C-alpha cells in the first residue's frame, strides 16, 4: 500500500455533476488546493479552489463581498459529490510578485495597498498577505489572491488559533490574538522591504520599520496612510515616518527639482561665460 498514492486519491477532486473540467493542479495550501479548470458552459479557464475538508466557503463569501480590480473575483461556488466545497475564481495569467522582476516596485506596492485598503473599508482583514499571494497580471495589474483565512474583523476568530505565514505575520497574530487591519499593515511593511533592492533608502526603511512595528499602535493606523507615505516618497516629499535633517531636506529638494536646478545652473554658467569671455 502506497500512502502517497492513497493521499492523492483522497485529495483528487471529482468534478462530475458540475460544469467544470479539471485541467491540472496549480498549488495547495493549508485550507485547500487550487486547480486549473475549464468552465465547460462558458468555455473559459478558471482557477478552482477545493477545500481539503468540508469547511464552509468562507473565502468565497469574503471574495464575493470585495469587488475590486485588485482582488481576484469569484465566479461561482458549489459542492463536489463528496461534500467538499469548491469555488471558481478568475484564472489570472501572470506571475507571482515573488517571481516578478518589477521595474517599478513602489508603484506595484501602491496598487496592492489600494486593494487591501478597499478590503479594510469593507471590514475584511486578509491575514496572509505575502509576495506569493500577489499576482501580477499580463497588463501589469496586481491582484491579491488566497483569502482563505481572511475574516471580517468585527467577527474575529477565537483566540489561540495562529494562522498565517512566519515573516509576514504580525506578532499579535502569531500569538493567536484577535487581529485588526494593522496585522495586514505589518505584512505590507514586510512585503515592501522584500520588494526593495538593498541598500534601502533611509526614508523607505523608516516606512518599513513603522509598518512592521512590534506593537500595533506604533504602526500606521490605516493602509491609506502607509500608501500616502510611499506616494510622498515617490514624489520627493517628506514622509511622516522619518524626520530628516537640513542636509537631507536639501538633498531631497535638489533631487526632486533636479531638472529645474540643472537648467538654472546651465543658465548661470552661460551668463558667466558670456560675461567673462564673449564681451571681452
Amino acid at each position, binding site marked *: 500500500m502506497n500512502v502517497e498514492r492513497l493521499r492523492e486519491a483522497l485529495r483528487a477532486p471529482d468534478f462530475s455533476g458540475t460544469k467544470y473540467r479539471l485541467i491540472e493542479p496549480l498549488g495547495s495550501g*493549508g485550507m485547500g488546493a487550487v486547480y486549473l479548470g475549464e468552465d465547460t458552459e462558458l468555455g473559459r479557464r478558471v482557477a478552482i479552489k477545493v477545500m*481539503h475538508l468540508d469547511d464552509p466557503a468562507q473565502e468565497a463569501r469574503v471574495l464575493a463581498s470585495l469587488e475590486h480590480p485588485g482582488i481576484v473575483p469569484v465566479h461561482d461556488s458549489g459542492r463536489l459529490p463528496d461534500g467538499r466545497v469548491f469555488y471558481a475564481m478568475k484564472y489570472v495569467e501572470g506571475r507571482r510578485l515573488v517571481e516578478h522582476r518589477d521595474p517599478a516596485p513602489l508603484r506595484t506596492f501602491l496598487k496592492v495597498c489600494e486593494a487591501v485598503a478597499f478590503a479594510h473599508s469593507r471590514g475584511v482583514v486578509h491575514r496572509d498577505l505575502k509576495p506569493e499571494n500577489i499576482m501580477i497580471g499580463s497588463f501589469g495589474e496586481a491582484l491579491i489572491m488566497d483569502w482563505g483565512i481572511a475574516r471580517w474583523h468585527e467577527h474575529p476568530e477565537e483566540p489561540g488559533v495562529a494562522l498565517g505565514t512566519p515573516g509576514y505575520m504580525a506578532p499579535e497574530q502569531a500569538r493567536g490574538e484577535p487581529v485588526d487591519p494593522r496585522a495586514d499593515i505589518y505584512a505590507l511593511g514586510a512585503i515592501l522591504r522584500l520588494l526593495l533592492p538593498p541598500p534601502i533608502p533611509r526614508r523607505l526603511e523608516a516606512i518599513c520599520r513603522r509598518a512592521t512595528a512590534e506593537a500595533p499602535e506604533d504602526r500606521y493606523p490605516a493602509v491609506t496612510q502607509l500608501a500616502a507615505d510611499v506616494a510622498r516618497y515617490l514624489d520627493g516629499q517628506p514622509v511622516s515616518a522619518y524626520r530628516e535633517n537640513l542636509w537631507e531636506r536639501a538633498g531631497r529638494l535638489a533631487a526632486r527639482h533636479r531638472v529645474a536646478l540643472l537648467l538654472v545652473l546651465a543658465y548661470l554658467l552661460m551668463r558667466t561665460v558670456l560675461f567673462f569671455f564673449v564681451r571681452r
Partner: protein
Amino acid sequence: MIVATRSADPVERRQAFEILVSAYWKPVYKHLRMKWNQTDEDAQDLTQAFFGRTMENAFFQGYDPAKSSFRTYLRLCLDGFASNERKAARRLKRGGGAQILSLDFESAEGELRQIEIADGVSVEERFHQEWVRSVFALAVERLRAFCDERGKTSHYRLFARYDLEEERVTYAQLAQEFTLPATDVTNYLAWARREFRRIVLEVLRELTATEREFREEARYVLGVQK
C-alpha cells in the same frame, strides 16, 4: 473513541479499544523495534503488554486534547512505558509471551524489512507515518466490507487495482482488464474514492477526541498540513 475508552459500559469500552488497537498496534510494534531496538519477540511481548496496560488502567485519563494530538500522547506514553520496562527489566516477571491480543506480527515484520533505515526520517516521525498507514489500512478494510455488503465488488476491485497497487495503470487499461466501458470505470472509481474518503474521515472521527483534533489529524493524514 478516546472518550469511549473511559466509558463505564464494558461493550462500548471494548469496541473503542478494538479501534484503538487496530489503528495503533503496528506503529507501536515498529516503534519498539526501531527506536527501542527490541528483538521481534520482545517487541511482540511489549506491544501486548502496552495495550494490556492501556486496557487495565485509567491510562488515558491524563490525555488533554488541548495540549497535543492523541497520536503524540500515545507515542509519549509508549516511550515512557518502554523506558520503564527496560530499566526494570521486568520482561520475565511480566510473564513473557502472554498473548492478550491476536495480532499479525509477521506482516508487521515483513513491512519493517522494506523500510529504508537511512532515509532521514526520525523514529518519531516514522511512528506517525506508520499510524497514517494503519488508518488507511483500516479504511481500506472497511471499504472492502462496505462494497461487499452492497454487491459492489467491482468498484472495490477497481479501486484496489488503481489506487492500492504499485503499478500505475490507465483508465483505458482498467476498462480492458475488467471488460467494462470506460465511463463505468470512471464512475465506479469515483464512487469508490468518494466512499474511501468518507470512511477515512469516519475512522479519524473515531480516533480523535475533539473537532479541532479531528481537523488537524485529517490534514495530517491528507498530507496538507498548514
